[in-house]
């Protein structure tokens, strides 16, 4: 990638915003995001990440994108995983062991049912969605 000019940066920002808004060009409309800070990794987030990727491969799902992110702040319930499925509210699950990860793919992504007893709340409002952005 060549060095950016001001115009390149602006153009790129506009483009990438769309992707962040989950209208992915590769038709991946389901997003699963795993918290991979030190706290998450210490609690086993790597195994969780692996289990999700495996479950998706096993079910032959092509519309799911798995990403990593930093600490969501819910350290008491690491590993945490956010699941965004079109037509369903975005959900954060806590204490996601590899078994729970399988359930997420099976129940939430395929069955469109939320899992009981594992949901955590989104910890804060997002300043990017606020006016002033």
């Amino acid at each position, binding site marked *: 990638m060549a060095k950016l000019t001001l115009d390149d940066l602006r153009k790129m*920002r506009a483009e990438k915003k769309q992707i962040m808004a989950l209208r992915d060009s590769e038709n991946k409309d389901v997003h699963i995001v795993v918290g991979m800070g030190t706290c998450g990794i210490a609690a086993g987030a790597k195994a969780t990440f692996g289990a999700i990727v495996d479950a998706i491969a096993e079910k032959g799902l092509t519309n799911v994108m798995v990403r990593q*992110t930093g600490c969501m702040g819910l350290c*008491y319930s690491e590993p945490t995983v956010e699941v965004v499925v079109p037509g*369903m509210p975005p959900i954060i699950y806590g204490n996601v062991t590899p078994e729970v990860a399988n359930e997420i793919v099976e129940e939430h992504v395929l069955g469109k*049912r939320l899992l009981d007893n594992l949901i*955590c709340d989104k910890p804060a*409002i997002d300043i990017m969605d606020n006016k002033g952005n």
Partner: protein
Amino acid sequence: MAFKNYLLVCGGTACDSSKGIELTDELRKEIDAAGLKDDVQIVRTGCLGFCEKGPIVKVLPEDTFYVSVKPEDAKELVQEHLVKGRIVDRLLYNHEQGKSLVTVEGIDFYQKQFRIVLRNCGVIDPDKIDDYIARDGYAGLEKALFEMTPEQVIDEVSRSGLRGRGGAGFPTGKKWSFAAAQPKGEKYMVCNADEGDPGAYMDRSTLEGDPHSVLEAMAIAGYAIGASKGYIYIRAEYPLAIRRLETAIEAAREYGLLGEKILNSDFDFDIELRLGAGAFVCGEETALLASIEGNRGMPRPRPPFPAVKGLWDKPTVINNVETLANIPVIISKGADWFNKIGTADTRGTKVFALTGKVNNTGLIEVPMGTTLREIIFEIGGGIKDGREFKAAQTGGPSGGIIPREFLDTPIDFGSLSKIGSIMGSGGLIVMDDTDCIIDIAKFYLEFTVDESCGKCSPCRIGGRKLQNYLSRISDGRGQLKDIENMQKISEAMTRASLCGLGQTASNPVQSSLKYFMDEYLEHINDRKCRAGKCKKLITYTITDKCIGCTVCTRHCPVAAITGTVKEKHVINQARCIKCGICYEKCKFDAITRS
């Protein structure tokens, strides 16, 4: 097929104990009765962080937040909200105050947290610069370079009211203006990512979750003060943060956001990492500079301040990670936006690492002016195991112990120092009635004594003395005059130590003496530790209630308990290490602690 609505019913401990389970059953019944079984899914969740107003019910996708919902309310909630699509006003948060809130985007927000510093943590992939750019990343740098002069950047930061988050709360704009005022030539921008407080991990998480925000801020600061070189001083114990920073720096260079002629402008700026070995004193700015220069990390007297004479005697600005993470937002959204958040004393937000005896430990960010009560009982979900709140410690080893009468103090730099603590970098440790104040003070003193660099005697000798007094008191050998001596030493340390470490090391002692004198007196006069933490002051004995179940014998780690089955057992006091395991394991209350 997806459901039309999801009812999230809080299944946290607090909500459950105020009839949350009955509520769930009622809601389920009402939904069945209304024939909505296939349209609505009921889900139980973990604590939603609002225990004081439990039970909580949240309706998705509208995101309506109902509080104090009783089982009797189930019918109305289902009929009105789910069948007719009308919000049940009387169950909304703040209904009493006449300013009901409906959703997150409403006028006010029910969620206590507000994320500026952590805006991208948990949202973007920290290894992807594109993710950061998509969330308005590098928009602040862009604006600074192409629409503002360096003076205007400094002015914007000054007007925002941002104060340094590394502990001292020095106005950031002012610091930058000092360095900018120095004659042109070599200058440096340094990011302090040493974060040595026990229990603190705000800066680590910020760097791990959003490394570019700090890089962008350093470039903006470099432009403002006229520096073209930056250093991030980070402890080697943070391997993940280091790796993510390295990836980020590499990516920023590739895009031309670091290096020569940034975005084709005339501005050059690059950043290098410097790894610290992890000494607490190296977080102090002059010691940190010495360490970057390759010398032993020891503080030196100020003035001259680093802004005048810093790295290699050149003007240098040192800012904390969290301070810096605010900068891109301040520049892109403007000082007026930032100025509206927080209190008159301190603008903006603060990130805390909430740990200790609270249910929801974690990383939180709240507007300045939030109270300890809101943090501990709403965001933190209250005290673990339903125990009693005793005290909170802010500012780590340099901070003070805050008793319950100050739970409602709005937190900012000024209010915390008024009650004998400090903001510090943001460790927040919550204690309950099983924590002994003397034990806590002793823990912090042990830390500072270990970490003192030894350069000046008030800190080196005073700290050791204080630690000895505390040990004596906790061993039951304390005397009344110890208290007076401790007060004198504390004052001397505060006044005469060379750096912040020694100047603040006695804060845990001073504040605990001020607010918990009764506990000191109890230890000294009655040789008693009410929390049962000071081991030398307690004895465990087995009473006649013992039925000889042998549970204690099996759990005692040092085999101090003897006795035959179905007969009364005895503890060999000489062997007992006072671990308290038997006391907890005995099902018949036959073991007493005194």
